């Protein structure tokens, strides 16, 4: 089953389309990460070295993947990567030029809905304790913090509990994406 593409205007008035990642978009996806602000890397990803970046994209795209496209570019990417325990780990990044425009919230919602359609049930992620904006996003879509230490927190979500319709936070572009956020969503 493929995911129907969803189109919307972001807060800056740019046309954005959300859709399932296609292998032919690999070059665009790698290009987004190569242009990604290194200051926004979190917990070691995305890798800086081009070779390792390419390998890492391979790892992520083995899972469930949704991208945000705008004017011929990939500007956002979210993935659910299977782990060895039968769960899926979430990663989400939005290019710095497209943050704060409501893309991250919709990208995340689209990913979780596609994941649920694909049979994903349990999703988790790690986030740095000081990344309050990312945590606010995760909380809005239903994640709950399950563990914490001084350097990282674990958040979890059972997809069966996910609200079915609409982006988080009300109107389509009112999801509180950050102006700038470590972790890069």
């Amino acid at each position, binding site marked *: 089953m493929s995911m129907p593409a969803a189109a919307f205007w972001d807060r800056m008035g740019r046309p954005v389309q959300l859709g399932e990642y296609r292998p032919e978009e690999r070059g665009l996806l790698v290009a987004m990460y190569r242009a990604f602000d290194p200051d926004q890397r*979190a*917990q*070691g*990803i*995305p*890798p800086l070295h081009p070779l*390792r*970046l390419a*390998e*890492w994209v391979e*790892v*992520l795209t083995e899972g469930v993947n949704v991208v945000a496209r705008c004017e011929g570019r990939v500007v956002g990417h979210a*993935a659910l*990567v*299977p*782990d*060895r325990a039968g769960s*899926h*780990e*979430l*990663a989400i990044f939005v290019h710095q030029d497209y943050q704060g425009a409501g893309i991250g919230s919709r990208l995340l919602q689209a990913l979780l809905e596609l994941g649920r359609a694909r049979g994903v049930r349990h999703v988790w992620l*790690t986030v740095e304790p000081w990344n309050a904006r990312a945590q606010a996003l995760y909380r809005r879509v239903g994640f709950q913090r399950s563990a914490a*230490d*001084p*350097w*990282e927190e674990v958040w979890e979500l059972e997809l069966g509990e996910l609200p079915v319709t609409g982006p988080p936070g009300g109107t389509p572009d009112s999801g509180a994406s950050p102006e700038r956020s470590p972790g890069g969503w």
Partner: protein
Amino acid sequence: MWLDNSPWSWEALGYALQLARARRVGLVAVCDPGLSPQDRDRAVAEGAAWNVDVEVRVPPPGSRTEWEVWRAGGEEGAEVVVAPRRTATRKVVFGAGLVWLLTNAPGPVVVYRSPKEP
């Protein structure tokens, strides 16, 4: 070094063995309780392949691996080798035990980062 059952930890063991051989010293491998006897034997065997004596230590009941690593580092006056975990998305995760060890280290700590990992 702190040895757990992750691929990164086993790779770090290889690095620690190279260091030990170059310095003509032995290696203390403090094993997570979850490491099987076979894996402990494997650590010793890998040491033998590098001509390095490996002493395996297992935390006693009620203790924690990071405490034993800390103790071993202090007793031996040696640097400690650790490997952070990688998640499915390849995030680097330290965990509370490793953070405790880093902040209370008795001496130098080598945080091994695999050159094979993204």
